[in-house]
């Protein structure tokens, strides 16, 4: 055990600083920037529906949700019941589906469905973007720099931090304040987010820009359906939600309310 109260001193070659600490940090920052731009480059905009029926299939669900959320502030009982019945029967009968004939059949295999395939490719690309550089750099660091103690933190820490700060250095007695090269890599990996925010502009402004103009009509581009999800099931679910809805209307008594809240006394 380390002797209490006695400062551990390790004589470090200053070259460790220039040849390990510095390169790791720089490489991490550069890969972060590179990854950002690669993501921007490979980012595929969400696919807009290709036929009117497909668009309807996506948006009918939102219409149901809108009715459920906003009916109370707009509709009187009569028109609410009318819309509710229309939506429920539409959902139940599958009138909003892309092709009502295919109803009840198991959803197409996402591997064969081109739309699902695309979405999966998108996800895959994103994951690869993270995985590949990390694996490479990690193995690079492991091969070249493992086992170095490169840094001493200026503040004391409890023993629990040992596994976080000293991975790759199997020395039981070493004070927790010493940081190994592999741990420095991990710290960089997790902690550089704000640096990227500073360098690249907050929230990756570059890639939103291209989409904004593309989004001619945001309402038309929303897709509540995940790939591989069966819209019919969601519809039935939504129909049930609508069915249990009770009508109430905030327009009832609104005249009294504004008189009370806005009109001056004595009117």
């Amino acid at each position, binding site marked *: 055990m380390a002797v209490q109260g006695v400062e551990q001193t390790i004589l470090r070659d200053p070259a460790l600083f220039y040849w390990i600490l510095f390169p790791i940090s720089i490489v991490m920052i550069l890969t972060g920037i590179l990854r950002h731009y690669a993501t921007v480059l490979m980012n595929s905009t969400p696919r*807009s*529906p*290709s*036929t*009117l*029926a*497909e*668009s*309807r299939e996506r*948006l*009918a669900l*939102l*219409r149901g949700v*809108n*009715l459920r*959320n*906003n*009916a109370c*502030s*707009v*509709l*009187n009982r009569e*028109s609410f019941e009318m819309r509710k019945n229309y939506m429920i029967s539409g959902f139940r009968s599958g009138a909003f589906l892309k092709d009502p004939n295919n109803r009840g059949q198991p959803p197409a295999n996402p591997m064969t469905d081109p739309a699902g395939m695309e979405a999966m490719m998108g996800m895959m690309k994103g994951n690869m973007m993270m995985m590949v550089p990390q694996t490479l750099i990690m193995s690079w660091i492991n091969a070249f720099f493992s086992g170095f103690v490169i840094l001493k933190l200026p503040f004391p820490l409890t023993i629990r931090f040992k596994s976080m700060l000293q991975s790759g250095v199997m020395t039981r007695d070493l004070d927790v304040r010493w940081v190994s090269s592999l741990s420095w890599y991990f710290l960089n990996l997790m902690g550089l987010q704000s640096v990227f925010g500073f360098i690249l502009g907050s929230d990756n402004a570059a890639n*939103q*820009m291209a989409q*904004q*103009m*593309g989004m*001619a*009509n945001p*309402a*038309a581009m*929303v897709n509540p359906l995940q790939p591989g999800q069966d819209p019919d099931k969601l519809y039935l679910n939504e129909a049930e939600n609508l069915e249990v809805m009770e009508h109430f209307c*905030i*327009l*009832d008594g*609104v*005249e*009294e*309310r*504004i*008189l009370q*809240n*806005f*009109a*001056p006394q004595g*009117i």
Partner: protein
Amino acid sequence: MAGSISDIRNINGSDLISALHLAQQAPTILGQESQSKSSTASADTAEYYARIEQLLLACLRTGDDQSAQACLNQLSLRFGPSNERIMGLRGLFEEATAKDHSALEKCLQEYDQILSQSPVNVPILKRRVALLRSLNRSSDAISALIQLLDAIPTDAEAWCELADLYQSQGLSSQAIFSLEEALLIAPNSWNIHARLGELLYIDGDALQRSVQHFSRSIELCDDYLRGFYGLTLASSRMLEKSNGSIPKQTLERLKAFGLLKLGEIVKSRSVDDQHWASSRSELIAAKELLNRF
């Protein structure tokens, strides 16, 4: 600095005066742009292009076709001519510069051709409806719009347009339905509430609902001129008929409240005339109403 791109205010869609101001600055803005193009890359922001789009619309309204063409070129240079929104803007430009009826027909054919290739091109779908409307083919416009809304039922703008079309054809109950749909998408928009109140008032059967919607519109925006105007009219009409379920005393108070607020609004806005220039006609109407009661 006058005429710089960042000086462009967000102009009100129906405000002809500020559109004119903006369009007059167009040559300076576009000239500056071509100079500074090489020096600053920071101009490449979404706001910048939104402003250019606004400038394009203002130029088209004021008849400055050359500047409009320059704006359009700049936009399509950045986003490519196959961008849906750019296609819509180009269609708008061609419609606006069309010389005669046959040129408009040609635009319509072009839209049909684009839509046969990509059926869900929303800006073009909307342009087509607007073009049909300006060709005085309202029933075609209505059916095209219904087709659009069947596919995209969450588009409040389209529902409002449909309501307007129905109303112009005298089909008030359909118009009311459409506005209700629009309100379901945007439940807090006081202007749509007031508009719905107006339609209900014109329809005449549901004065109580009309009063309620005007009240709601006031509740959401407590100095909305149209809301107070409608509230005053609708409540006094209800008083004349005296068959609603709102007690008479409440109606009297509503009417008095509406008149009081209208008076205040008219007074404060007449002082600050320039600022409210766009809604001058509304002010005149309000004054006239105040004189009547």
